[in-house]
């Protein structure tokens, strides 16, 4: 059975390692925080200027001056810090953030990503995504394998305006865990109950299937 958003988040959470500073994008990536193992030390950075984000505040305790990049009210953990936007992107551009998890509209087999613009239709802006993908060495994309019309979003080449070139290393979709290298998507794991054939069918880009592909352990 294909994963839902929480399932995708759960699988990605397994990639978060002890001692990691992690930047979570809006949407599915935000959910990842809920599933990170509790026996490891992780700090969440939000590019609007906070390190050490905690859970959402209790009702009535929200503070308009303390939000995340999705403009949601948040709390902070002991050891948290606030800083200005230039410093925030110094952390990102300077490769101090260990892992970036973000959504995408399209990913291509060369690692290109498009997630900020549909010409003449949706022009919200790139926010911090272009800075994140241009600098991060460890990027996991959380996305649906296909769009609502059933067209693959795992492509030979992106059709939408790019956010960054050759930067994506891993993709977790509702169907599969893919590694992007040597101009191809390498199938690492299948979503529980999803066959290699289903994944192959839903993938427009080059899919490399090497040996037996295990199911995700979620």
């Amino acid at each position, binding site marked *: 059975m294909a994963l839902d958003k929480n399932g995708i988040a759960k699988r990605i959470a397994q990639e978060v390692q002890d001692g990691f500073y992690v930047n979570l994008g809006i949407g599915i990536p935000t959910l990842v925080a809920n599933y990170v193992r509790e026996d490891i030390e992780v700090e969440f950075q*939000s*590019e*609007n*200027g*906070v390190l050490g984000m905690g*859970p*959402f*505040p*209790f*009702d*009535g*305790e*929200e*503070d*308009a*001056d*303390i*939000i*995340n*990049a*999705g*403009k*949601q*009210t*948040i709390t902070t953990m002991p050891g948290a810090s*606030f*800083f*200005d*936007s*230039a410093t*925030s*992107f110094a952390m*990102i*551009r300077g490769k101090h953030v260990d892992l970036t998890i973000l959504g995408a509209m399209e990913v291509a087999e060369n690692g*290109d990503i498009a997630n900020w613009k549909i010409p*003449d239709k949706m*022009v*919200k*802006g*790139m*926010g*911090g*995504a*272009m*800075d994140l993908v*241009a*600098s991060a060495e460890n990027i996991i994309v959380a996305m649906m394998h296909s769009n609502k019309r059933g067209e693959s979003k795992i492509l030979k080449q992106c059709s939408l*305006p*790019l*956010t*960054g*070139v*050759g930067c994506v290393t891993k993709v977790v979709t509702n169907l599969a865990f893919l590694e992007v290298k040597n101009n191809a998507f390498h199938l690492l794991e299948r979503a529980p109950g999803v066959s290699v054939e289903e994944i192959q069918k839903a993938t427009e880009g080059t899919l490399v299937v090497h040996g037996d592909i295990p199911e995700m352990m979620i």
Partner: protein
Amino acid sequence: MINKKVKNVQEALKGVKDNMTLMLGGFGLCGIPENAILELVNLNVKDVTCISNNAGVDDFGLGLLLQNKQIKKMISSYVGENDEFERQMLSGELEVELTPQGTLAEKCRAAQAGFPAFYTPAGYGTEVAEGKETREFVGKMYVLEPAFKADFAFVKAWKGDAAGNLVFKGTSRNFNPNMCGAAKITVVEVEELVEVGALDPNHIHIPGIFVQRIFQGTNYEKRIEQRTVRQKK
């Protein structure tokens, strides 16, 4: 101590004119210069270029200037919460320059610190880099981005003193410190104007040298865009 204190928002915005380029602090509606924005509406200055990470919402923040058709051009990284914005942009009434958020912050900092331009990897290979100089350093490609040039910067701080020293709170800090000293005139509104000497010199986020005018703000609404809470068990 060089005194930067002005009486009120009217005095603080003296000299703002049509066609100027204005910087405005804030991320979403967090840390926006609410008083300055309302006064810009009152002044009804036209055809201004606004540098601000976001464009407010329809009825608050920079959205008020958009409703009033005062903005000629927006330079932002994310403008996705504003219907009037989308309408004006798609109809061609409003010119929009979308800039990666880190680049936006650094273009402010470069202006503040006297750097004419800088190389960043953000946007390389995308339409953001079109027409811009690119260059390789140690095997990685970078885009040359110029510093901003602006007439006024409008900044919101938590506390400040008459010397122009500022302290920010939480994530309402965001772009505000980076915009101080990045325009010809930096105007700061504070929630609390404290006595000179009350701020710990070790904990001043922005020294007064980057500020030209400061005033005690009033009636802060501090609207929350995405109130997100959990329930106590």
